[in-house]
């Protein structure tokens, strides 16, 4: 085969086709039942996914089946753009339609805290934890995703949402850890299996919802409601995560794919 850059790309396609590169689907199926973020009821709410049949080989359309769907930009497996948060509101190219499409492909570091989260739903991702991880797997590179593996995607919906009287109880990063990732490691973005990129009790942090505040404040991205992170290596996976091109959109449900070298 040729050895030009173009042929590298074709080579990759061939390796995907042959299975030498594994494609891992990090996306939850969009369903009506999948939990969405819950805000106090007096606030506007993210619409859950809804599907309305237009026709199904019936009097509404005899030979075809199709649906209308409605959904919030922030439901199911979804992408957060910088414009989503007030800290990123004035950044250039901060909406899903203006983000440089090159940014939709980036390598990933998968930080496994599934064991810690299993015993503590309030597990906090800290700088020391990240440093310990780097010691074991290598430094987190600039322009790379950090994906938090908690195995949360394997839980029942009730456990997944973790709703209690004092709010959600799900793992997530403390402010210092997010700040460190952005300022010390210049990461591409932060991704989680949980409903949000932030800790379930993130509204009590300072600043509240630090993953949103710091990441989007510096033009970085978020991915949430990911699944199958347990199929990714700590390092080496490449993430394809192109949101819908919604005009001035703050995010969107999307298909997130990871390319992994087959073992």
């Amino acid at each position: 085969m040729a050895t030009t850059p173009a042929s590298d790309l074709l080579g990759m396609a061939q390796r995907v086709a042959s299975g030498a590169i594994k494609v891992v689907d990090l996306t939850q199926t969009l369903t009506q039942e999948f939990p969405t973020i819950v805000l106090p009821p007096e606030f506007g709410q993210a619409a859950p996914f809804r599907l309305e049949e237009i026709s199904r080989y019936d009097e509404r359309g005899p030979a075809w089946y199709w649906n209308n769907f409605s959904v919030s930009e922030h439901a199911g497996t979804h992408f957060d753009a910088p414009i989503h948060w007030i800290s990123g509101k004035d950044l250039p190219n901060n909406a899903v339609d203006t983000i440089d499409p090159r940014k939709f492909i980036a390598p990933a570091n998968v930080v496994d805290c599934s064991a810690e989260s299993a015993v503590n739903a309030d597990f906090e991702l800290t700088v020391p934890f990240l440093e310990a991880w780097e010691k074991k797997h290598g430094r987190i590179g600039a322009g790379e995703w950090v994906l938090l593996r908690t195995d949360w995607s394997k839980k029942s919906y009730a456990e997944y949402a973790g709703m209690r009287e004092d709010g959600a109880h799900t793992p997530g990063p403390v402010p210092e850890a997010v700040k460190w990732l952005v300022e010390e490691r210049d990461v591409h973005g932060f991704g989680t299996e949980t409903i949000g990129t932030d800790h379930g009790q993130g509204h009590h942090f300072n600043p509240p919802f630090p993953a949103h505040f710091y990441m989007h404040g510096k033009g970085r991205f978020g991915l949430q409601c990911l699944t199958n992170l347990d199929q990714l290596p700590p390092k080496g996976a490449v993430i394809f995560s192109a949101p819908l091109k919604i005009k001035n959109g703050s995010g969107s449900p999307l298909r997130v794919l990871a390319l992994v070298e087959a073992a």
Partner: protein
Amino acid sequence: MTEPLKRPRRKDPLKRTQQPLYPQSIRSRTAHGLTKAAAAGRFELQTCDDCSTVFYPPRDACPTCLSERLPFKTVDNRGTLLAETTIRTSTDPYFRERTPWRVGLTKLDAGPVILSHIHGDVLEGQRVRLDLKLDKGGAPVMIALPEKDTPNMADDPHLREMTCDPKFRRVLITDGRTPVGQAMARAFSDAGCNIVFVGIADPWKPFPGQDELRKIERVEIVPLDVTDSESVTEQAEQNGGRIDIVVNTAEHIRAGGIMQRHGVTVAREEMDVRYLGLMRLAQAFGPAMRGRGADGVNSATAFVNLLSVHALMNWPQYGAYSAAEAASLSAAQCLRAELRSGGVRVMNVFFGPLDTEWFQIVPPPKVTPAALAKAVVQALQRGLEDVFVGDIAEDVRARLAANPKALERELAG
């Protein structure tokens, strides 16, 4: 003595379901004055404004003085049953399969002689109370009841044809997350429902009162989200064939008008819950209910809509909410027409501000969820169609009847 109703046995699944029929329901325009009274549970007859003659059947001229001023007014419903007959054969298909059927002539103390159905505990020559009911076809009819209540009188088969008594029936309360839904579950359990299905949307999301709800006798929690067509369809596929009463408790209450509401997201949710939600329930549960209107002692009997009285006149303080309620009311009227052929009643229950968090800043009087639930059960037991619960609801009804324009201005504040 009325034989107490026995808990219906499980139906033979191979048995053909009796198709619903209803008595002739065409009425003259004037006779719909009786429809109006019966729908609200009042006993009203035309009473001449000029000569005070009380008369029946409804007329357009006073049979005493030819006056045209003949409003329907509440009159004394006591009288004497002069003669009765037991109809053994009828050309009317509805009655043909229900004979023997007793009817009689009652001389009311107020004057007129009235042909009526007869409760089983009433005998010829006795003193009776006449009641105005809606029959299976939603048309107004008279029934002679015992002078004083008798044991198990609601179980009388003639009377039960004209009511929607929850006893031994299976009810679906569409949203059990709210205080109203939970109060409703309690009230229907107490009223002797065989099963109280209670719909819960987003079961992953905990809600206050859920433990108590689960403890209520004969309550069965089922997944149901009226904003999700698939969820509603699935629930109907599961239980639609055995639901006799639907009580739509799904609510969406937010303060605010039209202009200062920022965008339409919330309004869309309101319409999704209150208008489209009703439509989804109607599409999913309606056809089976309409087909089961004559399915024995626990036939399908009622679809209950809980509506803000401001469905009838917008309350700008809750203006967008009022609009969604109005849409729901309009849909309910359509549903009423569609369910009527099955003998299934659509009952609209209008309430004023509830004593719940969403009306926190509204001053009393307010309707407690328990009071609302009690009113719904009683209205079904009486077989009503339009029910106003609480002082505000009654007030709005009266003012609307008196002068809608005044009410509009006054509600605007």
